[in-house]
C-alpha cells in the first residue's frame, strides 16, 4: 500500500485541537516543528525603543504526518476543518508521495511501519 506525507503549516494555538482531532480519527504519530515563514498573511511591524521594524516572518507550527494513502484525504479534511479560523494566516496543507517508510525498532516497512 502507498504511503503519503502530509505537511501542514497551521496557527500555533490550533496545535492541540488539531492533534486531538487527528488522534480521534486514528492517526498514530506526527512530527511537530515550530517554524517561521510568510504566505499571503505576510508580516507586520513592531516598535523597539522608538524605531519601527518589519517582522517579515510570522510564527507557525509545521506538522508532518505520514499515513497510508487510504487515510490521506480524511487527514487533510480533519486538519483543514480544525485549524480553520476564517481569518488570514490559517496556513497550508501539502500532500506528497513517500518512497518508503521503515520502523527503526522492527524493520517493518511502508504502511506496516506507521
Amino acid at each position, binding site marked *: 500500500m502507498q504511503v503519503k506525507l502530509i505537511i501542514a503549516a497551521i496557527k500555533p494555538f490550533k496545535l492541540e485541537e488539531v492533534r486531538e482531532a487527528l488522534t480521534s480519527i486514528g492517526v498514530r504519530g506526527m512530527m511537530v516543528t515550530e517554524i517561521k515563514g510568510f504566505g499571503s498573511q505576510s508580516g507586520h511591524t513592531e*516598535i*523597539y*525603543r*522608538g*524605531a519601527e*521594524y518589519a517582522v517579515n516572518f510570522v510564527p507557525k507550527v509545521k506538522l508532518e504526518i505520514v499515513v497510508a494513502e487510504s487515510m490521506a484525504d480524511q487527514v487533510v479534511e480533519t486538519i483543514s476543518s480544525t485549524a480553520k479560523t476564517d481569518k488570514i494566516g490559517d496556513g497550508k496543507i501539502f500532500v506528497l508521495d513517500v518512497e518508503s517508510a521503515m520502523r527503526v525498532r522492527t524493520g517493518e516497512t511502508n504502511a506496516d511501519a506507521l
Partner: protein
Amino acid sequence: MKLSRIVLATAVLAAVPTLGIAQEEAPGFDEIGPYIMTTLLFCMAGFLVFFMACGFAMLEGGLVRSKNVTMQMTKNIALYSVAAIMYWLIGFNLMYPGDFNGYVGSFFVPTVLDPVGVAAADAALDYASVGSDFFFQLVFVAATASIVSGALAERIKLWPFLFFVVVLTGVMYPISGSWQWGGGWLSEMGFSDFAGSTVVHSVGGWAALAGAIILGPRLGKYKDGQVNPMPGSNLALATLGTFILWLGWFGFNGGSQLAMGTVGDVSDVSRIFANTNMAAAAGAVTALILTQILYKKPDLTMVLNGALAGLVSITAEPLAPTLFGALWIGAIGGVIVVFTVPMLDKMKIDDVVGAIPVHLFAGIWGTIAVIFYNGDASLVTQLTGIAAYGVFTFVASLIVWIILKGIMGIRVGEEEELAGLDVSEMGMEAYPDFSKG
C-alpha cells in the same frame, strides 16, 4: 556624600586626647553607638549596592541578542572583580587622600584596614570602620564600570574593555571623585551631589559615550538612513535586572547619608528610601504613558530605562525633596529617556541598553535639579561641576580608547561580530540548546 573624610580625620585627631583621659572606663553607648550604627549602615548599604552588579548583568544580558550573552556575563563579573582590586590598589586612597591640593591625590597607596579587634580608643568613633567605608565606596566604582559595559555591548573585545576598566576604576573615577567626595576643589566651591548623579552616573555615561563614538555602531544597526532595531534576547531578565537595580539603589542613596547614629540621621535614611522609590516609580510611569502616546503601544524596555532614569535623577539630592518633589524630578528623568534614546540613534551612536540616556542625560538633569530643594546649591556651581566631570572624563576616556584601539584594536572582526561574540571570542554559548541534547 555630604561629609568629607578630611573633616572627619581632623575631628578624630581632635577627639583622641579626650578619649585618652577617659581610658579607665569602658566607653558608653553614647560614644560608640554612632560608630556601630554607621558601620552597619555601610555594610548593609554596601551589600545592596553590590547586588546592583547583578542587576546590571541581568539588564544587559536581557537586552543583548542571545549570541552575545556569555560575553556580556563575562564582562560583568570581570569588571566588578577588576574594580575591586584596582580600588584597593590605587583608587580608594586616591579618591580620599585626606589633605591634598584639591585636584589629584597620591597614587599607589593601597588600602589598609583597621587592625583586628580594634579598640574603641583607636577607632574613628565619629565615622565608621575603614573596612565598611572602603567596601561601600568600592561598590560605587563598580557601578560606574557597569554603565560602560552595557553601552558597548555586542561588538567590543573582552581584554581592551577590561584594560579600560582598570584605568577607569583605578585612576579616572578616583581622581574626579576626589574633587567632590574627597574634599577637593568642587566641594570647596559648594558643588552638591549627594550620592553621585554626576560623580558616579554621568562619569560612567561620559566614558560610555566616548567608547561608543570610537567603537562605532553594531553592523547593520544603521542602514540606508534607517534605524534597524536589534531586539534583546530576554525581556524577563532585563526586567529582573531593573528590579534588582531599583532595590540596590536604596543602598546607593540611603547609605550615602554616611551616618546613622542619631534620630535625625536614621530618619533621613528612611526619607531617602521613600524619595528614591518615588522617583523610580515616576520615571517608569512617565515612560509607560509617553511610549503609549508616541508609539500607540507601551515599550517595556523604555519603561525599564524610565525607572532607572528616575533613580539617577534623584541621586544627586534624594534627601531634601518632598515626595512630590521626588515624583516630578523622577518623571522628568523618564521624559529624558523616551526622547534621547531615539535622538542617539539619529546621531548613529549605538548604545545597546540605553546607558547614556539613563546615566549621563538623567544624571545631568538630577545634578541641576538639586537647586530646587537644596538652598545651599547654586545653578552656576552645579553646571561647573557637571562640565568639569564631563570634560575630564570624556577627554580622558577618548584618549584611553584611542590608545587601546591603536595598540590592540577594540572591536572584533566583521565575521566574528556576525557569528556572535559567544562563539567567536568565548567559544561558549549561553544557550547551547542544539549542541548535544
